[in-house]
């Protein structure tokens, strides 16, 4: 609690300082803030893990009183499903879409559902975080890692590589999240298909893997001891659980870890466009990005953000990347084959 309010105070102070520094922009800033206040809220469909998403929302609301954030958190694929279903019914509800499946943004862009908007300060972000056409930007990144329960095994016994997981000794002890729900996992599956081919998953399925939905869930399953090794999942949720004292440890396999850049974009039909831009800018400020890195254990594209000492730096890891375009194109195939191997 107190940690949170401290972070909160820091952000408020930082925001004020930032306001002083960019005094030149003050005029336009004020006008936009007024417009945003008139709109009253911003509707955010996000796949960021729930407590983190709520925290970002609270930070924003503290920085800009009078503008509420409506958080709707669910899996990446569900978000896309929602957006498309709502459009079919001509419902214009969502302002800002944020999922972990970069392919979604290719699709949404093609369908002209995104507004072109470049958030303040993203120029300095690495190329992998930026859409060439200027529609979406990577808000955060995570890598897929293996998580194991420290009560069940020593570090020496733990699997070190993706291939280690195929060992029959893990039969009935593994848990995976679902690419049909989570964009993190869809990216993960595609990256590993590049690395080891579909045969890898076919073999993995032999180990009777428990299936959960969200990329955040494998780590909670491992914390509870229901299964003792997670074969994927965003390392940030595992990191948070570890911080809270759960008996888990994260392994970053040597073959490389799938990097998942989760973009954010404003919809072309946003009912609260000013609030949406204000909010998007806010999420890309160093302050917000730093909070994500500190308390959430996420990676970001912001060059000035520092990371906790107990997390590997991105440049220390061998990163496996996939392009949004390929992810978009092969989305169906990923889900279908996964279901074929794993059953549901």
């Amino acid at each position, binding site marked *: 609690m107190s940690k949170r309010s401290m972070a909160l105070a820091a952000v408020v102070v930082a925001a004020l300082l930032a306001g002083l520094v960019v005094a030149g922009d003050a005029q336009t800033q004020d006008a936009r803030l007024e417009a945003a206040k008139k709109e009253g809220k911003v*509707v955010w*469909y996000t796949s960021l*893990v*729930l*407590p983190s998403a*709520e925290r970002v*929302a*609270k930070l924003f609301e503290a920085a800009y009183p009078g503008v509420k*954030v*409506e*958080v*709707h*958190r*669910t*899996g990446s*694929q*569900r978000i*896309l*499903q*929602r957006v*498309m*279903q*709502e459009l*079919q*019914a*001509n*419902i214009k*509800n*969502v302002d800002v879409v944020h999922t972990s499946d970069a392919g979604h943004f290719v699709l949404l862009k093609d369908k002209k559902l995104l507004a072109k908007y470049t958030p303040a300060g993203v120029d300095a972000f690495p190329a992998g975080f930026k859409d060439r056409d200027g529609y979406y930007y990577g808000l955060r990144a995570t890598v897929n890692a293996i998580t194991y329960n420290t009560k069940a095994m020593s570090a020496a016994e733990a699997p070190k590589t993706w291939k280690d997981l195929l060992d029959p000794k893990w039969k*009935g*002890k593994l848990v995976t999240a679902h690419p*049909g*729900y989570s964009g993190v996992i869809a990216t993960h599956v595609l990256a590993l298909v590049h690395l080891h081919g579909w045969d890898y998953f076919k073999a993995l399925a032999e180990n009777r*893997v*428990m*299936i*959960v*939905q*969200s990329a*955040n*869930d494998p780590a*909670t*399953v491992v*914390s*509870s*001891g*229901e*299964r*003792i090794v997670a074969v994927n999942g965003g390392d940030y949720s595992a990191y948070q659980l570890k911080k*809270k004292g*759960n008996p888990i440890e994260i392994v970053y396999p040597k073959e490389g870890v799938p990097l998942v850049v989760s973009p954010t974009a404003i919809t072309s039909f946003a009912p609260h466009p000013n609030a949406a831009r204000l909010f998007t800018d806010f999420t890309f400020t160093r302050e917000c990005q730093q909070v994500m890195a500190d308390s959430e254990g996420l990676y970001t594209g912001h060059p000035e953000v520092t990371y906790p000492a107990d997390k590997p730096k991105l440049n220390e890891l061998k990163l496996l990347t996939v392009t949004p375009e390929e992810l978009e194109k092969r989305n*169906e195939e990923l*889900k279908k084959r996964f*279901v*074929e191997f*794993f*059953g*549901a």
Partner: protein
Amino acid sequence: MDRSVAVWVFAALSLVVLMALPLGWLGWLSVSGEHGATLAHYRDVFTDLALRKALWNTVVLAFWVGLVSVALGAPLAWLTARTDIPGRGLIRGLVLASFVTPPFLGAFAWVMLAGPNAGILNTLWRSVTGSREPLLNIFTMPGLIFIVAIYTFPYVYIMVANTLALIASDLEEAAAILGAGRLTVARTVTLPMVLPALASGFILAVLQALALFGSPAILALPAGFHTVTTQIWSLFQFPPKVEQAAAFSIPLLLATALLLQVQKRVLGRRGYAAVGGKGGQRRTIPLGAWRFPALFACLAVMACAIFLPYGVLAKAAFARAWAQPLSRDNLTLGNFTFTFFEYGATRDAIVNTLELGVMTACVGAVMVAVLSYVTNRRLVVGHQLVAFLALAPVVVPGVVLAVGLFIAYTRPPFVLYGTLWILFLAYLTKEMPVGYAQADATFRAIPADLEDAGRVLGAGRLRILKEVTAPLAKSGIIAAWCFIFIGVIRELSASILLFTPSTKVMSVVIFDLKEEGQFGAISVLGLVMLGLTFATVALVQAALGRDVLGTRK
């Protein structure tokens, strides 16, 4: 005549909005292709191996749930209706509790109890026996069957207990005097007489299992298999295959209609008139030394359905880590603060749920009261048809209804998707038969003579409604209100396809949280839902227990 017209216009409109439009679209979409009508979707659906598997899983699940429900429900009913087992009231109360427990909450609780590794029961088992294998694995077909059955057996219980209560002991004693032993009497007299009730309870249980979405979603998906309902739901994932979902819904619809028809036959053939001897007494059978073992057996069943799940929900609500013992540093109120103050969706969902619950219950209670009054008093031509229509939604499983509503109301002329109205329609349709049955029973118990007696003495129709009918029907209609309300606040299978982020309800939030593994928050919301449910049940009991026709003795 003008009265008939008004009623008929109202009934026809409701029918169109609630049933004809959704089901019409459902049927149409299932056969519509790019170039006119086609059976391609059916072919796609029934040649797809995964979908065929799901269909088979549903058959297996439903059949076994039916059997297990009979195995649990029938003995319990006999014990409480006929023997001197101690704590009959308690057992009945617990059966009622299991009846109103949302099955998906039970399934969720059992994940914490009998997950093969972390499940509390399995941890205990391993620490006691030193075994490496789990005692129970809930993520299996038998596990799913068990979980569904412990919340479905009350259907069998109710049918059998009510029938047993009607069979006079004379009938059995008549056989005994002719020389039949106890077992022979049971086999040749009692059993045949409760057989229709057993069969019909079995069918009801099967129907429940067919239509259920939450428990399979929680238990079957992690185990890597689908049922029809979860499959329909996943056909809605992007890119949605609504036509296939429609085609896949049709067998479920047909199976339900067919089973209900069979049930009607079963109940109809051997007239209950023979069973309804009112003079006969019912003597209790002494269990002797078996009294307490029998009680423990009953309590063991109820422990599975009530004590253990409720306990683990309460524990998880107050624990930082639910799998760990409740030590001082594992104790927290954080789940409550998170659920109510930090997670924005909860409050909206609770408000939405209550709003929908109250609205549906009020509109529904008025509708069923009017409809059942009209049909009972035969006020219009074709009243039998009105009654039939009010009961018709029984054949539409929640998921199927939702697919139909989704198709019908995401397109002009009525775009209701994204509003609470589409949920309202779903709930109203789904709960209509339950409410109607209750209201119908109420008016059936109020002879028309009571109204006529007032009319001849000089009171007008409206006055009689107010001074005679309303006071007598009040408690029955309140009960109908409560049944609808309980049905609404626990509804998941239709909601899951119809909600949008701004129209979430509690069950959907719980399901969302489940997908993310937020056990603490789920438990908190689950407790809220149970609290609401039991408060409502208490209301029904109060309503029905007092000033009901015939109890003022």
